[in-house]
């Protein structure tokens, strides 16, 4: 008798612990706990006048704590005012809702081997009840189950490396990612696709472009502007294009695969060092800057537009340089700019800086004077343009000539973000003396000496 009672108590205690009241705080959380009710449970709630039956849904963390979220049998969610609730009764216990990936089909023999490395971002995001927003929660294998067509292209392995928003990426993430890719290629994988949040995918593409030296195959970064849990997601088409490109393209290097326009029709393949996110929300946010995409994917076919790229094949010098120096910065110049910002960076131990100057690559007189002193002390200053399009040229105006004289490195048509990543990478892997020369030489297609007019239809 006593043991039975004890067992009951134990069972009750474990149940209590397992109840998920995530998102609920304070009095409402205590109320739910007191009634041993958690997310997923079906309850009947009585208020002064009304009665609601529904499933308890986790509360968004930032939502007000005055309401209990219920999912009604018709699928709608509603908020029931907490201070009007007179009673709550548990009708049926249930596990909290969870994403259930579909069963993967067995890999088809005879197809090439490929891997999808997931780092997070919208492409791997699902709705999150904790915050009410979308959150990286879909692993690479979930993604594979959502895009089963990939199974017809390759024997795909999935590797969940990180699960973070791309704005939380750091230099060390780039190091780990490049090492992981290096190992997969050494193991003999014929295709490598990295899913990445779009916000900093341009930076990551540049980082991998420099870190992975002479890769035998193309490595594709891919993102999406609509999360994979939406029927209209661009993830599937971007991902399929990325996989086909990585497996079949005649070139090697690091590239980004994203929509060419807002239709789900053509996917552009961009050089990893020359691509930038130019729109906050459109599917075609990524554009090649100061160059054109290298290929376009449409209906299963990859149309290669350039033949001057490094060739795919066995590489006798495939190496990685995975280190990045953290003490570098990227600063945009603006009218009235105070150069003490830069001086304080130097004092904090920063080793170098990429500036986004105005127009052809200019900063004000005060800043130019300050830079001269810093450069003399060994600080590296590189110049790019905040115009985004075009080339810097420091020989046209006095200001430019002063900067050249001060020792500022003009980086031609290189993207500011690429320049920032490159400076970090140079300082991370090479001697200080080599850095200036390396910054000015073309390592991963970051320079384009011929800027062209676009074709007009």
């Amino acid at each position, binding site marked *: 008798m006593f043991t039975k009672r004890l067992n009951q108590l134990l069972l009750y205690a474990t149940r209590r612990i397992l109840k998920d009241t995530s998102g609920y705080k304070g009095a409402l959380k205590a109320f739910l706990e007191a009634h041993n009710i958690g997310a997923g449970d079906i309850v009947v709630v009585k208020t002064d*006048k*009304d009665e*609601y039956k529904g499933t308890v849904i986790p509360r*968004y963390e930032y*939502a*007000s704590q*005055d*309401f209990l*979220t219920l*999912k*009604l*049998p*018709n*699928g*709608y*969610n*509603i*908020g*029931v*005012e907490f201070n*009007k609730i007179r009673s709550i009764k548990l009708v049926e216990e249930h596990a909290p*809702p*969870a*994403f*259930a990936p*579909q069963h993967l089909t067995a890999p088809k023999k005879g197809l090439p081997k490929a891997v999808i490395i997931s780092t997070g971002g919208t492409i791997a995001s699902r*709705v*999150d*009840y904790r915050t*009410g*927003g*979308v959150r990286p929660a879909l692993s690479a294998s979930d993604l594979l189950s*959502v895009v089963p067509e990939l199974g017809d292209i390759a024997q795909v392995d999935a590797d969940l490396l990180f699960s973070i928003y791309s704005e939380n990426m750091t230099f060390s993430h780039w190091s780990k990612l490049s090492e992981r890719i290096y190992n997969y290629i050494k193991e003999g994988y014929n295709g490598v696709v990295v899913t990445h949040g779009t916000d900093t995918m341009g930076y990551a593409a540049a980082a991998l472009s420099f870190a992975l030296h002479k890769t035998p195959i193309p490595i594709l970064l891919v993102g999406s502007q*609509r999360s*994979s*849990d*939406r*029927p*209209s*997601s661009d993830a*599937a*088409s971007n991902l399929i294009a990325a996989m086909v490109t990585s497996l079949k393209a005649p070139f090697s290097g690091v590239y980004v695969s994203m929509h060419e326009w*807002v*239709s*789900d*029709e053509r996917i552009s393949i961009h050089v990893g060092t020359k691509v930038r996110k130019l729109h906050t*929300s*459109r*599917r075609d946010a990524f554009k090649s800057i100061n160059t054109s995409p290298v290929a376009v994917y449409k209906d299963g076919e990859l149309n290669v537009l350039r033949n001057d790229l490094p060739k795919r094949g066995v590489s006798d010098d495939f190496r990685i340089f995975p280190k990045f120096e953290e003490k570098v910065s990227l600063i945009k110049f603006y009218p009235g700019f105070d150069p003490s910002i830069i001086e304080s960076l130097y004092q904090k131990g920063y080793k170098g800086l990429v500036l986004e100057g105005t127009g052809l690559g200019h900063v004000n007189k005060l800043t130019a004077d300050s830079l001269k002193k810093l450069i003399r002390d060994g600080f590296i200053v590189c110049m790019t343009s905040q115009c985004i399009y075009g080339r810097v040229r420091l020989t046209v105006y006095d200001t430019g000539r002063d900067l050249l004289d001060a020792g500022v490195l003009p980086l031609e048509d290189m993207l500011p973000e690429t320049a920032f990543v490159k400076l970090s990478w140079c300082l991370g892997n090479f001697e200080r003396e080599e850095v200036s020369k390396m910054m000015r030489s073309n390592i991963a297609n970051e320079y384009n000496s011929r800027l062209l007019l676009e074709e007009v239809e």
Partner: protein
Amino acid sequence: MNTIPDCSLKRLSRVSYDKVELKTGLEIHQQLDVGTKLFCDCPTIETDVAHTKILRRLRPTQSELGQIDPAALYEFKKKKFNVYLYNQTSACLVECDEEPPHPINMNAVKAAITVALALDSKVVRELHVMRKIVIDGSNTTGFQRTVLIALGGSLKVDGMDIPVQTISLEEDAARIIEEKENYRVFSLDRLGVPLVEIALAPTTVDPVTVERIALELGRLLRLTKLVARGLGTIRQDLNVSVHDFKPSEVKGVQRLDLIPKVIEYEAKRQDYLFKVSNELKAKGLTAEKAIGTYVDVTKLLEDVSSQIVKKALKEDKTIYAIKLVGFRGLLGREPFPDVRLGLELADVARAHGLGGVLHSDELPGYGISKEEVKRIERVLKVREDDGFYLVFASSDDEEALNAIRRRAIAFFEGPIPETRGPLADGRTKYSRPRPGAARMYPETDIPLIKVTDELINECMTRVPKPWIEVLNYYVTTYHLNEKLATQILDSNYLSLFEKACSETNLSPTFLAVSLTELIVSLTREGVDTSFLDDVRLLELFKLVDSGQVSKESVLDVMRYMCQNKVGSEAALKAMGIKAISEEVLRSIILRVIDSNIRLVEAQKERSFGALMGLVMREVRGKVDGKKVSTVLREEIKNRLESKR
């Protein structure tokens, strides 16, 4: 088509709604007129010109409960892509699914709450915008944003209380322009227009009463003056069930008079399916035993003369046959027009892009001979009581074949829940499986909306008075008879009517007749009256008011305007109608009196009738008849007096 008579079915020819335990749930979708769309700042206008086209594909996704919705999967398996026509004046990046939704349009929320209060429904105090998965392409996102506004309440109709289930606010879908085999074309102009959806609880009332309920609900909505009027701004869905089976939903019934016909057809169809399932069970059959698997019979039909078969073979299609044990006579039996099992199978085939099915009760036929049927039956091992059907399908039609077979299996279950579409005559047609509850998940881009007491109180002031009070108001204020008052209240021109009454000196009765009976008569003639908008009509009334158009010619002018798409002034010019001034009228009347002077002298005032006819022959359509009679009486009197 062989229809096999069955005496036991004769009793069905008139359906008893009590016996079939008919239940009907009515859902009304009404566009709101609140200026802009629900989740962006685009105006709610229709546009015909496309500035650009977008091509998209949608994929099914899992709900928060980890389930894939059957309706969503079905649409994806049909492998359709969608083309969206985009016009800069009626859509922005939000409709293109290229920008997150803007905050919800609070005017639309207020309008929906007002409707809820009018129906005595309990308003939800914290609103959660949801995504309802719809991947037929009518939403670029693949979901429709919808928010539950209120629960419960009731609508009073002829002393009955019809319970309300839910009231929600949702975005309207994109407008379908055309449907091709492998793609659909939509216009984005209508996407995002706010709609209020009122779902009434299923009731056991007869089909005609359902029409009456729909009319009353429509009236209540129009009285709020917050809803859009005109063609396509209101749509009815009907959830029909018999014998407590799960209901089928007939979506998009546009005309009220179709409602009873749709319900009647569904009641007959579903009750028949119920009876068939019992009949099959009574024969001792089960789905597992009765429904065979597909057999490739292409070889057996390679040299037939049938045009249908020849065409299919030319398109490289395979001919599949499936045995249906115990189904001989059942597939073609038709207890009511267009109620038969063969049609159920064919509809599913057509919804999947196939031409249909051929079944044993209609063969030999369609160019397939008795001998060829025998050959098929031999291969399928079909015995005397058994039936079969044939499908022509390509290699990628696996899902279509499975869907048809699943439909056959479901003959053992009675009526199954489906989404159906109405046809012009009130019959219905299968369109897709019914969606499950797995289709709803939260719209995380929109924060939760708290409904404060202030908001409720503000909406309370806009709740319209009951219909009968409003009707009485119009009868007394405008001296309309009850029929005319009802007509103007039910019309799309109530606001215009009030405006014209205040801005002209025309009689309310004349205005009400013009706006209801005249326009209805033009519609009956087959004239498209959509050109007659409020602005154009008011212009016309002002011309009548100033005497430039006679009341008698208003109908002709309206007709001319619609047919030639011109304004009232232009119509007058083109028609050569020029109103006659009083001076000219008087001179015509004097001339008529002169030339009939003997008649006037003989008959005195009684000559009016004859003279009126003569004058009107000359001035009809150019002067108001009342005016003519006044002037004529005056002049007759003058003439008689001067004689004395």
